[in-house]
């Protein structure tokens, strides 16, 4: 019997035994749906807790300092501009790196806002990637190449009148070189931008590296003059990847980079991470992974038993039909094939519906307890595979058993 024929006959059996089919599908829906709901809830809870604990991004700071000395932290006084644009490009190629953010100081003579002139030594040049959208109390990040600036709250307060987004301040880069910059945004109080030492009480004024950062060096790798920075912030895509990024980044910076050639021989490149935070977050992540796995396995088990039970009852109920089919010439293979196709159809329908129900359930539950919704797609695939798989296994075993029974006995079965 060909497959199309069995699909047709199986579909007939499914629509014929409507209640039983609905109950079987319901079993799969509950199994798959509950896995997806609980996993989504777990993933959302994890995202919320990590979000609360992680006061900064998964960053690695790269600086140069005297070899053997204390690890040069962010903003080290020994900083010299050795990291070229070429180094930034190379680092961005490392797997797991989300962004590489350069920072450097630009010396200025003073600042002026509404006729209130302040003498001020320097502004910080960086790129827009150093700001998160949710770090802003007002406005947003600046645009590369534009005459824009971002202030921290302390900087916004240091003039006679408070500065807010959209205002214009004048920066005196050198004598007779004053430029008017639009304030694109003001950061919020809690912002801890690791690369520049946090929001804190010290006023900080950020400008885009392009066009304001002008320190250059000749890149030994390319032979061109490029912007060179004293410090880079290598941002990993996630906390789990901090470790994986750190090794290759260190290898590159110590052995092949422009920085390794530009730095004084007695200096070395050092990488620093917020170890305590990374460790704490990785601890939370692994606890949650175990928790989610536990919940998913239990849900799958419950679902699987439900599905298996339904299929067993359904096949047993139809022993007589199997007897009829065998009497009119169905081979064991035909019988098993029919039940197999039927189980697959029911399993697939149930899994698809279960996924929809699970996603809706997980979303609703996460919204209800006010969590950021976060999905764990790998578990959806597992849930669906198990849903269909259990349907097949629990359908095929009794079908195989029934197909082996003597048609005489099967026909006598009431």
């Amino acid at each position, binding site marked *: 019997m060909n497959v199309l*024929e069995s699909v047709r006959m199986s579909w*007939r*059996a499914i629509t014929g035994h409507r209640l039983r089919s609905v109950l079987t599908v319901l079993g799969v829906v509950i199994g798959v749906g509950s896995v997806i709901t609980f996993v989504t809830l777990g993933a959302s809870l994890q995202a919320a807790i990590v979000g609360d604990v992680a006061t900064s991004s998964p960053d690695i700071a790269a600086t140069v300092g005297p070899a053997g000395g204390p690890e040069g932290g962010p903003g080290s006084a020994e900083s010299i501009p050795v990291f070229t644009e070429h180094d930034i490009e190379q680092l961005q190629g490392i797997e797991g790196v989300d962004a590489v953010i350069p920072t450097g100081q630009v010396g200025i003579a003073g600042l002026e806002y509404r006729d209130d002139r302040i003498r001020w030594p320097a502004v910080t040049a960086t790129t827009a990637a150093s700001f998160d959208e949710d770090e802003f109390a007002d406005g947003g990040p600046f645009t590369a190449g534009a005459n824009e600036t971002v202030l921290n709250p302390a900087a916004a307060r240091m003039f006679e009148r408070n500065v807010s987004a959209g205002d214009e301040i004048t920066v005196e880069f050198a004598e007779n070189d004053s430029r008017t910059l639009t304030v694109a945004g003001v950061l919020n109080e809690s912002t801890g931008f690791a690369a520049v030492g946090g929001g804190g009480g010290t006023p900080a004024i950020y400008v885009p590296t392009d066009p304001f950062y002008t320190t250059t060096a000749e890149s030994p790798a390319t032979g061109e003059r490029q912007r060179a920075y004293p410090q880079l912030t290598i941002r990993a895509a996630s906390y789990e990847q901090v470790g994986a990024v750190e090794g290759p980044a260190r290898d590159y910076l110590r052995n092949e980079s422009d920085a390794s050639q530009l730095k004084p021989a007695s200096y070395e490149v050092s990488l620093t991470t917020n170890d305590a935070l990374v460790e704490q977050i990785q601890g939370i992540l692994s606890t949650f992974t175990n928790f989610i796995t536990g919940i998913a396995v239990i849900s799958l088990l419950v679902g699987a038993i439900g599905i298996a039970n339904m299929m067993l009852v359904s096949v047993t109920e139809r022993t007589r*039909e199997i007897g*009829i089919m065998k009497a*009119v*010439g169905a*081979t064991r293979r035909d019988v098993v094939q029919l039940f197999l196709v039927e189980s697959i159809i029911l399993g697939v329908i149930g899994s698809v519906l279960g996924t929809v129900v699970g996603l809706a359930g997980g979303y609703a539950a996460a919204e209800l307890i006010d969590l950021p919704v976060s999905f764990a797609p790998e578990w959806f695939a597992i849930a669906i595979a198990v849903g269909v798989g259990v349907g097949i296994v629990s359908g095929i075993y009794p079908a195989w058993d029934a197909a082996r029974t003597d048609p005489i006995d099967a026909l006598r079965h009431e």
Partner: protein
Amino acid sequence: MTDAAVELHDVRKTYRMGDQTVHALDGVSLTIGRGSYTAVMGPSGSGKSTLMNVVGCLDTPTEGVVEVDGVDVTELSDAERTGLRGDEIGFVFQTFNLMPQQTARENVELPMTFQGVGRSERRERATELLESVGLGDRMDHKPNELSGGQRQRVAIARALANDPAIVLADEPTGNLDSDTEADILALFEELNAAGNTILTVTHERLVAEHAERIVHLFDGEIEEIEEIAERRIAGEANR
């Protein structure tokens, strides 16, 4: 090749029930000629059903040879026997045994489906068969929408679907009232007249007398083969 549809040579079938050995068939030899109409009679436990199952390739004998259409069934594998059953044997049961979810036509198509007959050919043949048993207007009805007599007609049409060597009927009128019984027996006579080989098992003498001969079974042995001199004709019984 012989002109026998089915031949049994010294067939024995032994069951073990607990520590007792039961001889359901104890040396049965029988030739069922092509186009013949045979009835098997006997009290409960005489081996009627076992004989039927052995002939129908549902059961294998412990000893002896069963040939269906010249093929020794006892030598075949289970799958081969199933194939032969689908191709050469048509069953009619006392309880009809139709697939409850399928229409009359789909039920008749079923044996052809398992034999791999194409869809349009199947449909055509099923339509033809249902018309020939007088159910041309009931083809899309499900078994529970049909009367007992109509269900048995569907079952008979199904039994004929693959043009079998023999039609086996196990108490085919046991669940029917006397008028319907006469109709079904008349249908068997028609089929037999059209050249079909029929073996029916019954415990009712009145039903058995419609056949050409009656095989009397007792304790697993053939007690007597009785030729019916004056066959009962369904038309007369109906009068």
